[in-house]
């Protein structure tokens, strides 16, 4: 087993850590704004207003999700579990108001 001679050092923080921290920062700057969140975990969709960021969790006052029983409450959502999201920005489209029909 020969060790690669060129690989004897690593840099800290790792690029992965920087990306993770920068992502948290995106949510912190979005506090008070409306957010749309897609996650692979049930209930898959959250729409609401960002209340605060606690550690690497974002607290959202959820108005809409896939199931009515889970709506109108605060959800603490692990930021690094989120697969896609959109925080409303000035001059950009608003998140559609999805009303519960049933």
């Amino acid at each position: 087993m020969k060790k690669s001679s060129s690989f004897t050092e690593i840099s800290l923080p790792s690029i992965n850590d920087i990306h993770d921290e920068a992502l948290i920062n995106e949510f912190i700057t979005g506090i008070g704004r409306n957010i749309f969140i897609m996650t692979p975990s049930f209930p898959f969709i959250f729409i609401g207003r960002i209340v605060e960021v606690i550690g690497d969790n974002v607290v959202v006052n959820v108005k809409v999700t896939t199931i009515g029983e889970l709506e109108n409450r605060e959800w603490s959502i692990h930021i690094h579990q989120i697969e896609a999201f959109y925080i409303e920005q000035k001059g950009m489209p608003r998140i559609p108001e999805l009303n519960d029909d049933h």
Partner: protein
Amino acid sequence: MTNRNNEDKNRQSEENQKPKNGVANEDKHKSQEKNLFHDSLRINIENIEDELYEQLLSQIGESILVVTESDQLNLFGQTFRPIFCGTIINVSQGDITLFPANIKMINAPFFQFPTPLNIPLEKIAHFSLNFDCNQRIPLS
């Protein structure tokens, strides 16, 4: 804080109980002390090179095909593989923003999401630059 104080006290009493039990032991304590940081370290990352970020930054305005980590996502009852195609309008060190963002659903391969979509860099499994989002790709 209290933990640390207790540790300090413990260490002191330990040292008092065993006066000069050998220089080696004392040295060990000292070297442990030297390697301890008592608070989280703040590191200025301003000058740390982030090649992926730089690469994506240079692609703003270009189209990209992105596949993310999970097996599937669900949009109000519609499950789909997480395959996104769109134009990069913004890049941060945490995510990229696509707009317009097309989700490649099996039933609606050209479904355009009504808002921009941000995708965390760490959730991207793979991407391909300059992908024509109007191209048909078999999804099943």
